[in-house]
């Protein structure tokens, strides 16, 4: 067990809720694996909700970029929701806020599909 991850099919997209305080080099591989499984199952529209996540490192960002690229290459998309202030700063520091569509909450993100 490396990560508490709640995955629900919401019709318009798959909602993945990362129920961890940290998304880092210890558990980001697990997020990547779970996203790959969804892609293999033919899903390509994902919302990753980070509202429980207080801390993300570069490998957590890398896992999200990996999912983003995989979704796009399948004509789907990966969107984010619920970023805490300091997590949002990480996306700004690495310019990734220009790459991802970022929504306030999961509902908004799901509604955008």
């Amino acid at each position, binding site marked *: 067990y490396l990560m508490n991850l709640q995955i629900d099919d919401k019709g318009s997209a798959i909602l993945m809720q990362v129920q961890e305080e*940290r998304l*880092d*080099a*210890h558990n980001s591989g697990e997020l990547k694996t779970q996203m790959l499984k969804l892609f293999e199952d033919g899903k390509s529209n994902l919302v990753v909700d980070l509202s429980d996540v207080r*801390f993300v*490192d*570069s*490998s957590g*960002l*890398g*896992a999200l*970029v*990996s999912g*983003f*690229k995989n979704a796009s290459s399948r004509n789907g998309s990966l969107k984010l929701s619920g970023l805490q202030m*300091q997590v949002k*700063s*990480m996306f700004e*520091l*690495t*310019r*990734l806020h*220009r*790459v991802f569509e970022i929504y306030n909450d999961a509902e908004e993100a799901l509604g955008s599909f």
Partner: protein
Amino acid sequence: MATDQIEVDIKVPNQTRYLCLIGHIGENVARALKHYSGDREKLAYDLNLVLTEAMANAITHANEGDPEKKVHIEIAIVDQQLALRVYDHGQGFDISQFDLPHKPLAEHGRGVYIIHTVMDEVEYRPTDDGHVLEMKKNL
């Protein structure tokens, strides 16, 4: 008034499950500082972050995941300068190759860039049995 004089020295197994311990200790040090006029919670996040990045690199790139190896970390505050040192047992690398922003959609290669952005001075040098990444910040 005496400035903060704090030294923390940590040795943990070469496993990513301890990243969180090291990061939290960095946060605790930031929150315990007597003299800091900046945003303490931002400093706490930043120390957590650079310790996590540096330790993850030591584990994956230098110590190559060998769970029997140890990672050694030092946090020291002297005269309003904070120094973080992460020791590895590897062959070393040319850090100057990695201090520029990565390609926007790269999956790797943001760690050293982040460390450079957050800290004031970064140095990577050989030790007796590996290398040390020293990261300094003026408080």
